[in-house]
């Protein structure tokens, strides 16, 4: 590990990370308060619409059926597309910095001219990505716990299960980031790397929605990363989704290692 490289990365990402953190804090706070407080309005109108119920089912990871209540709706705050978009947007920004971003802006010659190995560069960037992702999820957790003091206690989600959901969400963050690292390692253009990563995430989410409408798509359900992140089931049962967590971590690790393998072996210079 090289502290100088980490200092450089922090210097470049602190501002964008703070902006994403503010977004996560505001959004998680709003959802935590609004969803259970205005449950009656939601239940009376919006939840009657089949399409909306399907979307919620897709995001929560299983059909909530008639069990939908303020607590179920509160768990939706952990899978809301905007929260996921903020987390994934943050990691796409960070994980495409090296090598795609450095090549694209032409600074890679200076970076690789330094007496450090490519592996050291990769590790330094990874530590900042993992650290800042953990910080964002902790901020979401703190925002959720802070705001729930303003809602009736019987609507609260159990704390230990919220923590399990947060850990599962972090595993999801690792899985998506791992794929983005590989895309970045294969690219010379930042826009291209970001675009491909975004398209892959979007495809994965779409697949999750399609499955709720179209039965035959169930055979490829395993391709959607959201299939391994099911907060509603965690809140319903008292078990740890170890298999899902391991699957997500393994996906992340596999693609991250593949990204490292490509980055260390390929030609890297300003084009």
């Amino acid at each position, binding site marked *: 590990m*090289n*502290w*100088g*490289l980490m*200092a*450089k990365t922090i*210097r*470049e990402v602190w501002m964008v990370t703070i902006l994403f953190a503010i977004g996560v804090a505001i959004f998680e706070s709003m959802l935590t308060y609004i969803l259970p407080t205005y449950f009656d309005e939601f239940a009376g109108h919006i939840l009657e619409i089949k399409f909306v119920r399907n979307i919620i089912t897709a995001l929560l990871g299983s059909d909530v059926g008639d069990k939908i209540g303020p607590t179920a709706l509160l768990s939706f705050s952990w899978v809301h597309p905007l929260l996921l978009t903020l987390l994934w947007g943050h990691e796409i920004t960070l994980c495409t910095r090296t090598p795609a971003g450095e090549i694209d*802006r*032409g*600074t*890679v*010659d*200076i970076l*690789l*001219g*330094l*007496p*450090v*190995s490519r592996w*050291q560069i990769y590790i330094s960037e990874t530590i900042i990505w993992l650290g800042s992702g953990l910080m964002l999820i902790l901020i979401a957790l703190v925002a959720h716990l802070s705001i729930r003091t303003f809602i009736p206690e019987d609507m609260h989600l159990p704390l230990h299960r919220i923590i399990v959901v947060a850990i599962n969400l972090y595993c999801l963050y690792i899985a998506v980031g791992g794929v983005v690292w590989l895309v970045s390692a294969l690219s010379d253009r930042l826009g291209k790397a970001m675009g491909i990563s975004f398209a892959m995430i979007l495809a994965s989410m779409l697949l999750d929605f399609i499955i709720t409408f179209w039965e035959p798509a169930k055979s490829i359900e395993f391709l959607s990363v959201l299939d391994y992140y099911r907060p509603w089931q965690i809140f319903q049962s008292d078990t740890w989704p170890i298999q899902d967590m391991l699957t997500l971590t393994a996906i992340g690790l596999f693609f991250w290692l593949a990204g490292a393998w490509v980055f260390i*072996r*390929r*030609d*890297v*210079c*300003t084009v």
Partner: protein
Amino acid sequence: MSCISTNNLTKYYGRRVGVDHLSIDVSAGELLGFLGPNGAGKTTTIRLLMGLLKPNSGSACVFDLDCWQQSHKVKAGVGYLPGDLRLYPWFTARYALKLFSQIHRKDMTREGEKLTELFDLDPDLRVDHMSRGTRQKLGLILALAPRPPLLILDEPTTGLDPIIQYKLYTLLRSLADEGHTIFFSSHTLSEVETLCDRVMILRKGKVVANESIESLRDRAKRVVTIYWKNSANHEAIMAPTFLTVSEKNSKTWTGTIEADAMELMRWCQDKPIADVIIEQPDLSALFQQYYLSPENSQ
């Protein structure tokens, strides 16, 4: 001792050749100029030496370390200035020196401050507010500040004003005298001629000349102008074999000599000559011969 050595180093970009079976050797303490037209393979060679590119075949070694396999060890002893220099927009000289000291694990702020003063650079000016020449100065400061045993500079004088260029030449010369090895590419023939011990010319990825400046000078032609006395009748005088006269009129002869100037002076002694002007050896003409492809030079 060999500081840089390559053996049949080859790099292709798809079907296009970058460098082709390049074998070079640079001794420690040498100041070597690397010349060639655009696309000749100068930057590719430098990037192979820095471990940015992986060779298709052959090998490149710096300090007897493989440039691809052990590139981070190689770079610990190299100060590198890229050709198409682009720095982080938030860099200032002061901040960059502090950061590079952390990365190099070696304090280079003191040396950096000296260089900042020498190159007349504001240490707190951000890169995104710098002109191209000022950015080049910062790139040079960052390459020179660790005082590495080897400097690899890709067109270091690009964008620099003549005063800073002169300061850089003096600095590079003194570093070479102290034993540092300097390998730099250039388009400017005059700076290579002024500065280097040896010149290597590359064309289409191959070395077409590898000689000391002295031996090039010996081979270079000199332009000579002979002024005849007004009353002289020089119509019958025959030019010696070593003098190629390209232009004759009633008062002057203009041409080139390939021999020693003393030989011409001896020939002039018994001729009705008013004045003789012998110019410096014209290396540029010689370089241009190398630059042109064989089909063009014919």
